[in-house]
């Protein structure tokens, strides 16, 4: 599994020169065209909706129902965002430690860390989610204090596991992408290994790690609706409950489109920003 990152990863482009060439041109595309395209798609969806609604009063009643459920659905959406932020925080903290362990010169540590990383990167998100939901206890006792672990916290932990593995690969890729000359000159200047890492290598890595890290965050946010499958009440659950309460099939497409639209509005700017940063730091070419 060593160096498997060249095939499996999300944000480890640094480790593979031919991959780098791929990401470069992909980052170029016209935002105008994309927005027009999305606009056209939404317009088509609207037209389909109008055709489906037939009469305009039908359309108005659909919009009224959507308006009624919107606050509740948006609350659910905010909960998804909260889960994504928490999972990202936990995943980043643990992933950074794991990533640094992966570049450790002490071989048992480095082997173990890359094994853990590859394992969690290769496991499907949904399976890890099920794993945490079913196998974590419903409460944990830490130093005599019993802390309840509700489903949503277990789900957040479940989502943070693949994030951890991917952050670990991002850290490894970034550290290894720093030219060897940097290490050698630091050694010549009598820096210890720890000093070299913290004062010379990592500050340079931060810039390189930011775009893939943001990309990972967007991927995580898009994975958060999975928690509805394991019984945590999020935007998806609320939407399905609303649809069940109304019981009208013509609501299905508009309601799901609304939810898709919110996620798009949240994730698309992140993707654009990531591309802008990639170009600015010029790390992918």
């Amino acid at each position, binding site marked *: 599994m060593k160096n*498997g990152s060249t*095939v499996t990863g999300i944000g480890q482009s640094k480790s593979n020169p031919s991959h780098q*060439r791929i990401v*470069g041109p992909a980052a170029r595309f016209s935002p105008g065209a994309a927005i027009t*395209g999305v606009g056209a798609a939404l317009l088509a969806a609207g037209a389909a909706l109008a055709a489906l609604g037939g009469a305009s009063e039908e359309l108005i009643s659909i919009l009224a129902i959507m308006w009624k459920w919107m606050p509740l659905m948006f609350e659910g959406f905010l909960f998804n965002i909260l889960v994504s932020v928490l999972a990202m925080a936990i995943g980043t903290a643990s992933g950074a430690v794991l990533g640094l362990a992966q570049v450790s010169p002490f071989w048992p540590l480095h082997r173990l860390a890359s094994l853990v990383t590859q394992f969690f990167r*290769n496991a499907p*998100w949904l399976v890890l989610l099920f*794993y945490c939901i079913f196998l974590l206890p419903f409460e944990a006792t830490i130093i005599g204090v019993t802390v309840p672990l509700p489903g949503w916290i277990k789900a957040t932990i479940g989502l943070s596991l693949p994030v951890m593995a991917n952050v670990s690969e991002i850290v490894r890729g970034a550290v290894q992408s720093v030219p060897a000359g940097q290490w050698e000159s630091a050694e010549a200047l009598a820096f210890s290994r720890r000093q070299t890492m913290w004062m010379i290598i990592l500050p340079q890595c931060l810039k390189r790690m930011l775009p893939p890290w943001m990309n990972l965050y967007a991927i995580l946010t898009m994975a958060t609706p*999975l928690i509805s499958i394991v019984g945590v009440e999020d935007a998806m659950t609320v939407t399905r409950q609303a649809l069940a309460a109304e019981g009208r099939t013509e609501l299905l497409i508009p309601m799901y489109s609304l939810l898709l639209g919110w996620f798009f509005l949240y994730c698309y700017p992140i993707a654009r920003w990531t591309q802008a940063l990639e170009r600015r730091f010029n790390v992918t070419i």
Partner: protein
Amino acid sequence: MDAIYDWFRLLNDEYGINFAVFYDPFYRGRFFNGLLMTVWLSAVCIVLSIAIGLVGAWLQGSRLRLLRVVIQGYIQLFRNTPPLIQLYFFFFGLGSLLPPVTNEYGAQVPPIGNVTWAIISLSFFAGAFNVEIFRAGIEAVPRATVEAAEALGYSRFKAYIHVVFPLALRFSLPALGNNLVNLVKFTTLAYAIAVPELLYVSAQIWSDALNVREMMNLLLVIYVAIIGLLVLVLRRWEHALRMPGYGL
């Protein structure tokens, strides 16, 4: 085989570690069918998503602005929205628009089943990434190489088949492999619309045999093994296609 089955039965009787899928033929059959469904879903989606990627990348080179805009819109919409909601949108949303048909028992059933919707939805999701990947691969082919092919009398189409595509494929392979691995991981989403793939049958088995812990661990190991195998195959392929001296 029987010795292995007996060993697992003993493990259950003596230690209460219940791997029912190994010693119980009923669970074993179910589990195996689930595994086959996962492999089938993955294989079909890989082929379809690559086809979508190739067609999309080709259409993006079109002179028609409208066509390019439509493709770009498709890519951005599918890349930046959650795959689970896409699946629900296809299965419940679009599925509800289609008129039901009567099957041979006289029951009203939807014309497109859940397995087909899962294949459609996952293929479009992964296809959106593949379009970008292939286009980047085609753009990475040096202009001079294409001009050299033209100078040698290749037509535009022949140059594409014999010169551009073989190089573009090699440029695209690492990113493509990445995406295909993600696609196989995302086949678990089909659980949400009751496609009897590995995760779904496992959920049925652990609620029947009450062995959540054992099934969960087995499931995790099997998925990691399937994906590890895919990674290995892709790496072999990449290695076999290598062209020394071309930076590939």
